[in-house]
């Protein structure tokens, strides 16, 4: 029964049941290759975010600005290439550095001021979304830019980032799974992973034992920013353009996916594999509803119900594991 107590257990059962549900209701179209691809392709960008957000949440912090960073990073690539005539790969490199800097800024602010990361990154959410809109309009009078496919270096980027892997399945799926595997290994098998758990579970105790809590948090904020950057670049390449509003609400979806996957909102407990399953459930539901032929507005009702249910299950699991009454 130890297996049932693992954080991913309820998420795995959930993913399986969701799949069975849609397979029954929507029939062959859902079970087809296109159906599976539709679900996985929708899950991948969310999954990339969720993996990084999971690590941060295990360490006890939130990053609400990842959605805005997606918008900012996409716009950064487009402005550098289309407005300043850079070629694609240098533009991507600079954008990566920019996102890392944003992540560092978030982390440093949180650690220095001691303010809840919820508040600090909520501020970043507005600042960077605003900057994205303002700067793009200042330079181009538009908030949507296109034409990335005409830039030097696009072909390689398509293959590596934005294109299809095999059949209807996109390359982003590979990035997602790869990052999840890396995150799981770090979390469970390295010193840093132990520190992440400790930082979230009992930061004061961890500090007393010599864990560099501040450094752990800053690194994790940089990682969430970089994950957002990756999603943005993948989407910019795939859709050959960027939109200043892209990524809106992704931060909340990422958190939901992470919580569904068994990570506690209070930190100290969770898994990257769970985040993968959470994103998978999300993507499956998102596309499954449409394939079934149901009005997409019901999606939000489902979202809310699932969040509450996930939190209830999490509480139950936690009370079993931590032995609290």
């Amino acid at each position, binding site marked *: 029964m130890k297996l049932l107590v693992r954080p991913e257990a309820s998420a795995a059962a959930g993913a399986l049941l969701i799949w069975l549900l849609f397979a029954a209701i929507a029939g062959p179209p859902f079970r087809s290759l296109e159906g599976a691809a539709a679900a996985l392709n929708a899950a991948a960008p969310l999954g990339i975010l969720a993996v990084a957000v999971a690590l941060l949440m295990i360490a006890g912090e939130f990053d609400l600005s990842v959605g805005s960073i997606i918008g900012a990073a996409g716009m950064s690539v487009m402005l550098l290439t289309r407005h300043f005539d850079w070629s694609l790969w240098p533009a991507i490199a600079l954008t990566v550095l920019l996102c890392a800097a944003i992540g560092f800024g978030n982390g440093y602010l949180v650690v220095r001021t001691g303010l809840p990361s919820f508040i600090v990154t909520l501020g970043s959410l507005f600042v960077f979304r605003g900057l994205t809109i303002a700067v793009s309009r200042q330079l181009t009078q538009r908030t949507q830019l296109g034409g990335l496919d005409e830039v030097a270096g696009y072909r390689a980027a398509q293959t590596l980032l934005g294109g299809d892997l095999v059949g209807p399945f996109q390359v982003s799926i590979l990035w997602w799974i790869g990052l999840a595997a890396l995150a799981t290994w770090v979390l469970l098998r*390295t*010193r840093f992973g132990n520190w992440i758990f400790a930082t979230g*579970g*009992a930061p004061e105790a961890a500090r007393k034992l*010599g864990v560099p809590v501040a450094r752990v948090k800053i690194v994790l904020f940089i990682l969430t920013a970089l994950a957002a950057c990756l999603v943005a670049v993948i989407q910019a390449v795939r859709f050959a353009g960027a939109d200043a509003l892209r990524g809106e609400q992704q931060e909340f979806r990422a958190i939901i996916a992470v919580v569904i996957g068994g990570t506690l909102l209070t930190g*100290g407990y969770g898994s990257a594999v769970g985040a993968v399953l959470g994103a998978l459930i999300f993507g499956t539901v998102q596309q499954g509803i449409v394939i079934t032929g149901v009005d997409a507005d019901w999606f939000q009702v489902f979202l809310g119900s699932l969040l509450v249910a996930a939190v209830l299950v999490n509480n139950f699991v936690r009370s079993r*594991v931590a032995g609290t009454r």
Partner: protein
Amino acid sequence: MTEPIIRVERVSKSFGRVIALRDVSLSVQPGQVTCLLGDNGAGKSTLIQILAGVHRPTGGHYLVDGEAVQFNSPREALTRGIATVYQDLALIPLLSVWRNFFLGAEPCRGAGILRRIDVGYCERVARQELEHLGVSLRDSAQAVGTLSGGERQAVAIARALHFGARVLILDEPTAALGVKQATAVLGFIARARDRGVGVVFVTHNPRQAHPIGDRFVVLRRGEVLGDYRKSHIGLERLADMMAGGDAPSSRLMEQQN
């Protein structure tokens, strides 16, 4: 008579205008249990914080192995082998026993990008150290939160001992425990003592202190009410003192020799 590992001589501590300790002396011998008794507000916490390196005394001397020291942080005290287990145990309930055990000191193998924790070693050693205290776990991968109060104390104590504690300061380890668990903890203290560690056992329960202690130091309102060896004081008298029988008097200090 062996040299005490640590000794404080006539230390005082004030916080602003509040005098928390006045003229307190105490010594800790290897392989002996010194019980530090007193009601709430007697100054026990302040005294052990001085021993642990959290505070510096405002008066008096602190000697380790016979030489005067001034600790700037608990880490410095830790490197001299003075380990403190506070009431929160510094354990993370959601993490496994071995992860807690080796937190901050995880043994690694491999190099560069493949550097990883030696999980096998951690699980094995954590389990062994607990065995030495008499606690057998099915599996050291189980979460600390699933352990009983006494078992958690064992983890904290075993961790301190494993990483080389010579002096073990236990801050009210039995306070939140039932009788059975408390007895188990007393057992751990005995085993630690048998390994040559000097234990400072802070408690306000004389009935628990008396069976296990070799020395008893009773504090009241920041001063030493009495300092006795086991042979010189019985349980009734000890309980009486705790309940407020005698007036504080520094002349009641029993000399070491």
